[in-house]
């Protein structure tokens, strides 16, 4: 930063931007480009869901009939994630209320924002803990992806010579090629796992914001980071909004 710019630009304004407004809108455009990429990335996974459902529709129905996914846990996690989206939105709102001139009001709103960010991160951790209980139960009973699948109540037959799973084993040892629980659980773990990874990253960036706020950063003209992390967090919520009914609810 050259010194001749420093006297009429706030220190958080990069020298290549004319105004904070320009800097903020550029930040946000960059974030939206990233979020759009995220949507396209997840759409590949959702397309895999559609294709698998197209071929193995009855497997999905059977998963629901056998209650292999816990609706109460999925429901609780949905409420937890929606609540964290609210606290994140309120944290962004507090950031918007921090005056550029440091005073008691800026301290108050910055503190509110910090509290809301920490609550958001805690809720994200609650989500992950519930997910951990779901995963460990599946590990215990054997409803695992692909070749790791070894659920005794709905077994699959593996061809010894090729190592391929040919289908589910029905009563009397008959092979049902249209039943593929191992593929359903591949989808389940890849989709919820990718989403869960986003939640883990979310906890990290939200706590990073809380630390920066503790150092006295952010005010109503300099809160792009808070807003962009907020956008990211809402996107994670948005993906779960579709993932939850598709995995846990639909027949």
């Amino acid at each position, binding site marked *: 930063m050259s010194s001749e710019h420093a006297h009429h630009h706030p220190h958080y304004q990069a020298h290549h931007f004319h*105004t*904070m*407004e320009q800097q903020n809108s550029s930040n*946000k*455009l960059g974030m*939206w480009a990233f979020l*759009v990429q995220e*949507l*396209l990335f997840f*759409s590949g996974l*959702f397309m895999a869901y*559609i*294709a698998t459902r197209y071929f193995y529709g009855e497997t999905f129905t059977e998963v629901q009939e*056998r*209650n292999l996914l816990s609706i109460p846990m999925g*429901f609780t996690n*949905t*409420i937890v994630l*929606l609540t964290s*989206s*609210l606290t*994140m*939105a*309120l944290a962004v*709102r507090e950031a*918007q*209320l921090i005056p550029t001139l440091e005073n008691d009001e800026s301290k108050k709103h910055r503190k509110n924002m910090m509290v809301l960010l920490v609550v958001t991160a805690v809720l994200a951790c609650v989500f992950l803990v519930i997910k951990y209980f779901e995963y460990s139960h599946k590990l215990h009973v054997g409803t695992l992806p692909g070749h790791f699948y070894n659920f*005794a*109540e*709905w*077994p699959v*037959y593996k061809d010894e010579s090729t190592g391929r799973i*040919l*289908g589910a*084993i*029905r*009563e*009397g*040892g*008959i*092979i049902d*090629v*249209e039943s593929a629980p191992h593929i359903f659980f591949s989808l389940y773990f890849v989709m919820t796992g990718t989403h869960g990874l986003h939640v883990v990253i979310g906890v990290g960036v939200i706590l990073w914001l809380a630390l920066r706020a503790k150092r006295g950063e952010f005010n*109503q*003209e300099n*809160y792009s980071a808070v*807003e962009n992390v*907020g*956008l990211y967090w*809402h*996107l994670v*919520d*948005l993906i779960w*909004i*579709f993932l939850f*009914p598709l995995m*846990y*609810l*639909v*027949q």
Partner: protein
Amino acid sequence: MGHSHSEPHVTPLSIYYGVFGTLIVLTFITVGVSYLGLPSTLSVIVAMAVASVKAFFVANWFMHLNHDSKFNVYLFLASLWFIGIFFIFTTFDLASRDSIMKHSGTFEARKANVEKIIAPKDQWPVASETASH
């Protein structure tokens, strides 16, 4: 959108709480509907309709698309458009395979492969632990 000053648009608290309440109510609805035992296709349509309404509330108010630059809105809508093309065209492909590839596109070939196989008895399904018999 058209703010000459750098003070941001602050959405009233009541709107955030209203949106949150709506999202919770819609979650109860979608879970409640799942216990009705609707036919497969209908249950997907209802669940996706409710999820889309929820997504709209999140995108419009939590993500501030209602007060964002139109360019960001179009960027978002463009991604939805291309996802739509991706889903629809790929589904057409899946749906037309059966008529084009009588044997490789269906389960027929695999069914013929397993016709003579009987799984060893120790691999047969065990009774459900939760079953009430």
